[in-house]
């Protein structure tokens, strides 16, 4: 510790410049998240309840819901995602400006849920990167609020000066995938009752 002289007043604070910038940037980002709702199923009903007056996520700086990806910070996928919608959510995600985050709300968005069938994406993390997974079928509004607060916590831990703490999403690879095919197959493995299913190829 370097001696900086005698302290005569307690009305100042010493900090590293990086920490000051990170604190200012991250606090503003975390406390004014504009959500882009992507509601496809019953989770969207709970999402609406979370937005409405009783639970009211405007208390956490989400006053303005952005129904356009261009003005959104956080994509909330509420509900199951069929393969037919996969290119749509990917495009919405690509259209959102950096920095951007994704909340996967509910069992279906996170894992495919009970829909372990030919039409359903087994977890939206095979399509877009996910920051917070909210479990539940559907999650109660308190659950979603907790997920939003976890996202705040995560944002406040990011750093503009440290690439490990702030990962920018890369575009799709030349196969048109976000993850390697083996990883997608692995995280889409059947579970629960569907282990008796067979796959012909």
């Amino acid at each position, binding site marked *: 510790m370097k001696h900086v002289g005698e302290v005569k007043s307690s009305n100042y604070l010493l900090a590293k410049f990086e920490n000051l910038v990170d604190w200012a940037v991250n606090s503003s980002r975390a406390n004014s998240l504009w959500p882009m709702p992507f509601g496809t199923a019953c989770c969207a009903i709970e999402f609406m309840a979370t937005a409405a007056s009783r639970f009211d996520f405007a208390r956490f700086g989400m006053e303005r819901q952005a129904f356009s990806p261009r003005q959104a910070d956080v994509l909330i996928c509420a509900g199951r995602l069929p*393969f*037919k919608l*996969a*290119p*749509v959510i*990917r*495009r919405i995600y690509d259209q959102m400006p950096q920095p951007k985050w994704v909340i996967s709300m509910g069992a279906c968005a996170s894992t495919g849920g009970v829909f*372990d*069938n*030919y*039409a359903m*994406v*087994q977890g939206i993390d*095979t*399509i877009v990167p996910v920051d917070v997974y909210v479990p539940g079928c559907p999650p109660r509004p308190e659950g979603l609020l907790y997920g939003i607060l976890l996202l705040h916590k995560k944002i406040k831990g990011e750093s503009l000066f440290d690439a490990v703490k702030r990962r920018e999403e890369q575009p*799709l690879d030349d*196969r*048109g*995938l*976000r993850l390697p*095919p*083996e990883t*997608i*197959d692995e995280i*889409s493995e*059947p579970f629960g009752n*569907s282990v008796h*299913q*067979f*796959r*012909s*190829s």
Partner: protein
Amino acid sequence: MIPGAVREAVARDGERIVYVARERLLDAMRWLQETPEQEFDYLVDVTAVEFRDRERPLEVVYFLRSLKRRVDVRIKVELQPSDELSVDSVWHLWHGADWLEREVFDMFGITFKGHPDLRRILMWETYAEGYPLRKSFPLRGRFSRAEQVRQALNINPEGNYSLEELSIAEAAGDLPEDMRDRLRRGERGVIPEPPQ
């Protein structure tokens, strides 16, 4: 009714089911719609059934209702699985059959002869895994999950719309020139051959 059209008629628990020969379906349907004391003016639904017993024929089921007489009838056509899975379209009698028959085609692969626009309706048009509601179709699909994700992500969502529909959404002007070209030519990707 038309001679030779009815193969079997069942009335049970207040339900009336009439099995009609495949070749005479259109005649029978026209008779049901036009005959004054029949007047089945409303086609409620078209669907199909495949049974677990592979020997049993597939059934195409038509739910008809007469709004004036307030009665229902169910018409069934049996299709042998070894045979060609096709039946005449009733679109000329009830235009509401358009999307209903497309859905049966999409899910079962039954073709409707004379349908004005028979293409997939629920799955996308380049879907290559077959017909999902057939008993031979595995629940999780034929391709691996990675391949399904890859194909899904490589779909161009604009390809599902005509140029007119895109113009309505004021999106056509924003599209790159080559994409507009492809849409103008009506190209929607390669439509695969149905698997055997």
